[in-house]
């Protein structure tokens, strides 16, 4: 499964490489080329491949929806039991795919690539990515050294249930951690870009930070939404109590004049606490009426201890996928 965007020169060599590696493996496979509204002839090339090779499907978006959407489309449409995602820019090496498949065979649900020897510019690419990876690792608690690497393998029935939206493609493993997958990381080769322009910039730090916060909240509290809100309500309420008691203590015991600002601030923070508690209740309501539940996800990765059998959702769930 390859999301591509304006990669007209890369697409054919990429497919050749994939084909070479996988046909040696004696597997039935398909290649999904998801064209995210490219403006060059990427889709023509992909469609040519698709017409010539029964293994290839080329999917074209109506416009540019972003990499997450391309990933989501690929995941929705893929038919295989194992999904491998990779970049369309030839920076990943398809020769690594067999090792990913091996790790899935070994019982992992998600295998993440680690470009231990990156061929990119140091300042603009490597350093920010180091910091981002460190931060993401700290926040999500997943020991992944390279979140930006697109070469990943997933067990299909796990990843198909994980909601992907907005710009979550950087955080697929983090989102997937909702389901508690068995996750491992392996080293992969990384090549310098041969053709075409790189499409990433540095300017997304703020967005990434907010997304990270979102994921942290959802992963940590989605199953008990009111907890998060009540946790931030507690300091506000404590502060409010302190200030209110303080100002009344002043008046009653110390017989000073009533301090309006202090009491006012106390009332304000009290209101904030109340608001947050109410928001927590509201969150429970939202969660209850929604259909993405964390409990369901837990079943995806549950397995019988002795036979090693993998569990699936029940039949009706399968159909929905």
């Amino acid at each position: 499964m390859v999301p591509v965007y304006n990669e007209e020169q890369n697409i054919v060599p990429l497919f050749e490489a994939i084909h070479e590696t996988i046909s040696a493996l004696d597997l039935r496979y398909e290649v999904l080329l998801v064209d995210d509204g490219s403006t060059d002839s990427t889709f023509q090339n992909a469609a040519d491949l698709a017409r010539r090779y029964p293994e290839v499907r080329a999917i074209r978006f109506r416009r540019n929806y972003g990499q997450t959407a391309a990933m989501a489309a690929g995941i929705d449409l893929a038919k295989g039991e194992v999904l491998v995602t990779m970049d369309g820019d030839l920076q990943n090496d398809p020769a690594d795919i067999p090792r990913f498949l091996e790790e899935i065979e070994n019982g992992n649900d998600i295998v993440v690539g680690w470009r231990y020897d990156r061929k990119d510019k140091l300042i603009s690419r490597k350093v920010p990515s180091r910091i981002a990876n460190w931060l993401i690792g700290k926040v999500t608690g997943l020991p992944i050294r390279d979140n930006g690497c697109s070469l990943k393998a997933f067990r299909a029935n796990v990843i198909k249930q994980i909601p992907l939206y907005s710009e979550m493609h950087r955080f697929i493993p983090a989102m997937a951690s909702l389901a508690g997958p068995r996750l491992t990381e392996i080293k992969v080769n990384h090549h310098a870009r041969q053709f075409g322009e790189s499409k990433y910039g540095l300017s997304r730090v703020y967005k990434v930070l907010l997304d990270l916060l979102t994921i942290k909240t959802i992963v940590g509290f989605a199953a008990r939404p009111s907890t998060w809100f009540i946790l931030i309500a507690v300091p506000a309420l404590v502060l409010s109590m302190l200030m209110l008691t303080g100002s009344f203590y002043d008046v009653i015991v110390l017989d000073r004049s009533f301090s309006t600002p202090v009491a006012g601030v106390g009332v304000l923070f009290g209101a904030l606490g109340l608001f947050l508690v109410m928001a927590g209740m509201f969150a429970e309501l939202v969660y209850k009426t929604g259909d993405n539940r964390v409990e369901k996800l837990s079943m995806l990765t549950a397995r019988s201890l002795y036979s090693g059998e993998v569990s699936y959702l029940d039949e009706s769930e399968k159909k929905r996928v």
Partner: protein
Amino acid sequence: MTRQPELSVIIPVGQRSDDLEKLHSSYSRSLDACGLSYEVVYVLDGALDAAIAQLSVLRDAGQRIKVIQLSKRFGEAAALMAGVSHSVGSKILTLPAYFQIEAPEIERVLDASRAADMVVARRWPRRGTVFERMRRACFHGLLRMVTGEKFRDLGCSVRAFDRSVIDDINLYGDQHRLLPVLAAKQGFRIVEIDVSQAQEDRFLGRYRAREYLHRILDMLTVFFLVRFTKKPLRFFGMIGSTIFAVGAAVFVVLIVQRLVFDQALADRPALLLSSLLVVLGVQLFALGLLGELIIFTHARDLKEYRIAEIVEAESDSTEDMKSAGRTPLASSFQ
């Protein structure tokens, strides 16, 4: 009526409607000229006795029209959606229930719609007072600023589009005017063509202040829907954290003044201001997280992408398979 019509003409009838008999005959004359099989659906937005009377005259005269009546006044967007669900054509043409464009122009609109997903008519050249012109320019300029889409006559309800366009967009409230904007944001190709304005097209009523307010609110809704529906925390979080930061900064200044310059803290109004800002910031942030939770729990329904086409090898294209199916790849691409 065994064959399905190719084109569904939907005419929402609201408060403003001209003589429907005259209108229908002029519409059907130009529709006949287009050579497409079509059906005409009138949707009455509430109990409109005059319109019902005119339509039953048409029906008695043997015109094959479908008339749907909404039980009460729901608005034009609802009428349009009702019309869509009660029609079958793969292409949809919406027309106003009053003279807005010269009827023969319909053919040009339909012609243009072959090359695009949606055609929006623009009345040009256009009559109107200077004030009206300014008002229009204001509205469309603002719209362009907010949504980044350039349309010049959203008041004209003559639009031709594929059914797939409306399937992807759920119109509600007052959004019928903004349908082209929403469609453009979904990635449909939209073309605006100039059509000549009808002689009779003149709105005699006055626009009240409420109307203006509604238009502006519509625009805000679309702005929010288009930009932030899938990432509420970015919207609320951005505003919330800014407010929070201002509040916290003021607070820090106060603390410094208290500690270093020994100014009393307790009776300064700025203390109230800073804590108000902090409180507001946290609240907005909490709203953003609530939004994220809503999106997360409904993410399965929110398909973010629209697929234009899927190409795969067809089993019946035998010659392709023979020539290319299993040949070694390296050679076939050189």
